[in-house]
């Protein structure tokens, strides 16, 4: 049986930590499921392709906040790195970091879909 605890292990986070902040499993599951439809990753992808620094930064920043709230630690670290990188000006390294981010994102989506 796949539990929330297992799910958070795959996300690189800790169920216990999240459970302290968010009052019920029901709410945790609800928002994890909602994350699947969150447009910030798609927006980030588009912005990186277009080298649109501002959009990329805003999307990475939003993604970072969402991951932080949901205890999705691995993806949070990626988004954090990207938003720091693109805060002031375009940095070519952002493309590389984004490429690393793609599998982390896909793993997170799979982990959530299993619930």
């Amino acid at each position, binding site marked *: 049986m796949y539990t929330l605890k297992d799910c958070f292990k795959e996300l690189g986070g800790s169920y216990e930590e999240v459970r*302290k*902040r*968010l*009052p019920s499993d029901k*709410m945790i599951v*609800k*928002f994890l499921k*909602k*994350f699947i439809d*969150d*447009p*910030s990753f798609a927006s980030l992808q588009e912005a990186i392709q277009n080298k649109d620094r*501002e*959009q990329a*930064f*805003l999307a990475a*920043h*939003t993604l*970072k*906040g*969402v991951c*932080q*709230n*949901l*205890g999705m630690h691995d993806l949070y670290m990626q988004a954090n790195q990207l938003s720091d990188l693109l805060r002031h000006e375009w940095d070519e390294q952002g493309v590389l970091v984004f490429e690393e981010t793609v599998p982390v994102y896909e793993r997170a989506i799979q982990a959530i879909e299993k619930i």
Partner: protein
Amino acid sequence: MDQKPKILIVDDSAFNQEMLSEILEEQYEIIKADNGFEGLQVVEKDPHGISLILLDYYMPHMNGFEFLKIMKQRGWLSQIPIIMITAESDGEFIDQAYGYGIFDFIVRPFNVSIVRHRVENTILAHAKQKRLQYLVQKQVKEQGKQSDMLINILSHIVEFRNEESGQHVLNVRQITKVLLKKLTEIDPQLKLDNETIEQIALASSLHDVGKITVPSKILNKPSRLDPEEFEQIKKHAKNGYDILNKVPNYRNEPLMIVSKQIARWHHERFDGSGYPDGLKGSEIPISAQVVAIADVYDALTMERVYKKAFPPQKAIDMILNGECGCFNPLLLQVLKDPTVQKELKEIVQMAKMEVISDRREFLDLCTDPILTPSLRDDFAAEALDLISKRDQISYTFYSEKTQEIRFEISLDPMFLTISSSMAKKYEIPSSILDPQHDPLLLEKLGKENIDRILHEIECSKGKEDDIDFNFSTEHGGEPHWWRIILHPLYHEKDPKDVRGYLGLLLDIHSQKMTHEMLERSASIDELTGLLNKNYTQIQVKKRLEEADEMMEYAIAILDLDFFKNANDEYGHAFGDEVLAYLAKRIQGSIRKLDIAGRIGGDEFLIMLQYPGNLETIMDRIFHTISSGSYKGFPISISMGVASTEYIKRNFDDLFNVADFMLYEAKRSGRGCLKIYKGE
């Protein structure tokens, strides 16, 4: 009243919005805005209806700080507490955010309990703070009002005996305040804080208290006082001091000390020529010096039993010229200040508004948003509702009927709000961020007009006057006329720093068109299409006033020979035709810049500027007009000419001489030209 308090969430991430609503929606009504601009629109609609704002920092178009800036400029920040939500923990950022006026932070990742508690505490704390503020204000107002009231009663008793309306005391008090404020600005050594200024102004109400000891038949004598009577009047200064001095208990109260100074020495003059003590220069306390000028100014501008009222400027000139005695040069400098002069002028008008301002004050109290229902009762919330509803109705009524567009502009960042009914009518949004780049506005107003408005705003910096000018937009290829008025709004802390403008846009098109049409029809002679008599005179006078001294001008007056015959033989309709024909020939004989008008039945005037020989020119004109015939009626004219070569540059003189020369032409057999060339 069991409505849930409203919380506005301003965040560009739908995910974050939903998470916060999930946490808070049980207790609160949630309004969501995707960015700062949408948030401002929500607030603008109902600034009193929102209990708290949760604000993200990084958002497209407008970041959290820019949002806070506008909230502050519009005065909404003091109404609604704001909690910023952020993952930032850098100290500088946090300081900056508090500097922009946020109430508190919520740091990511959210802890649901902390979010709930912080939101609840903030709403309560803000309400408590407002309530405390209100109570303190109320208390201060109450205390102030009571001493105010007693002093007013006292001074009114004096004025009542004086058969004056009581306006004098009120005016002197306000004038004193205006003068003192300016004086502290220009004299850095004089350190008067606001409280002291208020105190001196209040004490000024008692300046004439000693008049109670002067017999009223002397006080109200309409004719000139004899020396003995004048001596009696003069006693009021010292007597006023004595009366106040005998008041037990309050001897050392600052208000009492100032009142005594003013009562005794408000008729002293800077050179020692005043009474009762003949004090000189700085021996006279500044309070008494200022009230002395205020007293004189108001006395000059008001009608009294023994004199008529002087206009404000005249009164100021009289004081500056020393016609009312010698005053401190520094105070005269204050009096020369244009803003001071403007304020003094307004004081009389403002006094008439007294009744209205009372109601304003009441409204100020009532609109203080206090959450506790029991306090609400205190403020007669019902009355407030009635008044504000009435205001609302009248506002809508007037702005609809007058077709005014009312708006407000905040600067930095630029943000425009427009009265909603008008926004709807002209199909523009009622709030626009960055209006100077808004494509819809650019299309409706035209870029050059927007640039002009920005230019006028730039030019008006540092000036207090309203910006007021007319401009036209294009409407179906035709110009359409508007008038725009912008009234600057200043920062509370720095009165020189403009934070925005209240604006009024008026459709003056039909008014302007009617005006132009009227002016045209009022200036043209219907029959001939030339200028009519009145307007000819105006134009000629204007031309002479603006005339170049080096240029020479001539006036010719002509009439049609035997015109009476045309009327008698062929009828008036034919006569009219002849006149119209003649007018055409006159018009054809002169240049576009020259003036031609019909100044009587068959009498015409020509004015022209001429180079070289007048005789040749007039001769050519004369012969061009006076030749041939109209439908068998011979066109022959008599013409008299006067020029600035021989006559003063003055309409009447030139006209009379030209008229005389016309008479000469007629006398010598008609059909000829006579030019005046000196005696």
